[in-house]
């Protein structure tokens, strides 16, 4: 184990996989010479050279399409989109091509590729640079979606994503890049896709969260513990496939659930998860499931009101207390 931040853990995952497998290549806007707008690709050009680490034009849809073609042609490409907001320009290649090439071609091809994209809000970047679009990708069959909360998971999940033979949308939270944690040094350390992780065991309420929401949920759980409320924090880690057995097992045990999502509330992943809980463990529920969500507004700039739009530790604490009191 060694302590490192989320950015360096991702960087190490890329380096280890590129050392291990010469078919792994990476590209994106400002990825090579500039070493990434969030510096996740630092040192890659120097170590692996121009043919494996490439700068691309500002052509998001084509970045994804080239990655699809390269995967179809036998490589294991990892593309970076500068931020998730720009993935909207690439939705044609992501949804119309990458997610369904295998299916519509009758299983005759597979796409071992990863599209990395930083995202999330909270840095006063305004409406067009602060979005949480995870639900958009979860909605589409054929994609895997990962969104780590800790440096260790960041490393282990990215390595699994690169080795996986399916196309993976790999989300990274911009506010987590500097967060620190213990990371296994073993180059065979992998975190499986599709497996949630109990980040804090507890008895009375399950808080289902992911990425930065997991970090806030853990802070909320700590505070609630002082008031005698025992929370289990389940970190999804992968959003597609959802680890439904883990969610149901935890809620089956605690009998209460709060789902925390950074995305917009309407048709958000909280709605999906709450529904699955209602459908499958209605009898063990002692209170209705509650959602803590991003507000259904375009993100405002001013930090005073931006804060209202993103779940906070306090709003999670309130939601847990409401569930404990059976309030709805």
């Amino acid at each position: 184990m060694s302590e490192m931040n989320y950015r360096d853990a991702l960087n190490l995952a890329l380096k280890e996989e590129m050392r291990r497998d010469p078919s792994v290549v990476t590209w994106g806007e400002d990825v090579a010479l500039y070493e990434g707008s969030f510096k996740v690709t630092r040192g890659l050009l120097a170590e692996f050279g121009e043919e494996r680490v490439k700068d691309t034009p500002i052509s998001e849809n084509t970045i994804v399409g080239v990655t699809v073609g390269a995967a179809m042609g036998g490589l294991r490409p990892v593309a970076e989109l500068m931020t998730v907001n720009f993935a909207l320009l690439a939705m044609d290649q992501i949804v119309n091509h990458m997610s369904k090439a295998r299916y519509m071609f009758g299983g005759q091809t597979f796409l071992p590729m990863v599209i990395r994209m930083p995202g999330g809000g909270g840095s006063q970047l305004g409406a067009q640079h602060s979005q949480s679009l995870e639900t958009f990708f979860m909605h589409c069959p054929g994609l895997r979606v990962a969104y780590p909360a800790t440096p260790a998971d960041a490393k282990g999940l990215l390595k699994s994503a690169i080795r996986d033979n399916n196309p993976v949308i790999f989300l990274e939270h911009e506010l987590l890049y500097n967060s620190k944690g213990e990371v296994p040094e073993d180059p065979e350390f992998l975190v499986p896709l599709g497996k949630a992780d109990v980040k804090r065991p507890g008895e009375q309420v399950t808080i289902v969260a992911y990425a930065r929401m997991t970090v806030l949920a853990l802070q909320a759980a700590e505070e609630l513990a002082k008031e005698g409320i025992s929370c289990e924090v389940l970190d999804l880690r992968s959003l597609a496939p959802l680890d439904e057995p883990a969610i149901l097992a935890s809620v089956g045990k605690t009998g209460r659930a709060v789902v925390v999502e950074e995305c917009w509330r309407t048709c958000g992943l909280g709605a999906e998860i709450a529904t699955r809980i209602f459908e499958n463990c209605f009898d063990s529920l002692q209170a209705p499931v509650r959602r803590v969500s991003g507000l259904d507004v375009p993100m405002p700039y001013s930090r005073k009101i931006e804060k209202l739009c993103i779940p906070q530790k306090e709003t999670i604490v309130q939601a847990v207390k409401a569930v404990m009191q059976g309030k709805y």
Partner: protein
Amino acid sequence: METKLRIVLPDQQLLKLYEQMFLAREFEERCAEQYTKGHITGFLHLYSGQEAVAVGATAALHRDDYIISAYREHAQAIVRGAEPKRVMAELFGKATGICKGKGGSMHLFDPALNFMGGYAIVGGQFPISLGLAFASRYRGEDRITACFFGDGAVNQGTFHESLNWARLWELPVLFVCENNFYGIGTEVHRSSALANIHKRTCGYDIPSEKVDGMDVIAVYKAVKYAAEKVRESGLPYFIEATTYRFRGHSMSDPGKYRSAAEHELWKSRDPLPNYARRLTEEGIADRKVLDAIEARCKARVEEAVQFAEQSPWPEDEQVWEDIYV
């Protein structure tokens, strides 16, 4: 003056070009019939009239070269080597289809033939063709990628993004624009500021030329030259083949936006009878030889229809297969 055929190719291969064009035409015309009978459903875009492009171009490529195309691609797949019966079964939605009945007319694919797919999002194949070409270069394969598309696709963002990118990364891609002068019902002058499509590539420093896409030999020669250029230089090249579809955009289009006179003019340039005439005039085949070729093609397509009809539907469980590896 037309080139003497024997200067271009040996007799055997000249006859093969005719056979492939005839097979493609016969296949498409039987598709139309099967659509009318309700055996083929959904969108059906036929290639009749454009055969010289697929046949001439494919003959000029190496068997290892990737081909990628749009949704009007039955002929391209068959000319590359796909079994007509498996393509027909695909159109019937049968489990024996080339994509198990999951793709349909617009999504043919066969990696064993290096036929890397039909795509139904106009312009969707451009970026993918670049990725394939990059993978070939990276893996040290002696392979180029031929990317086919229509005149309508050249106004998509992916076209411009991909031309720039192909030149920038020096990718071995041969772009082949099949200019049939219409994107559905919109004539090229109504959609393109510069309707002389091949001239657009100068903005991306990609050499280009225009070729008569109704003449299989002209297409063959142009693509042969272009493919060699791409292979030698590793750089992209662009061909615009002017052609015409004799049918509507798809089976649901009666094609009222085109005048009878225009249609007649292009009909007189039908690549099949014109090439047959040259073959006989130059003493490469007489009518008997051509008749035998035609009969063979008709039998193959008849067999394809029978095969498709008799093939089983996909099992219900298959709906969940092939989403993930």
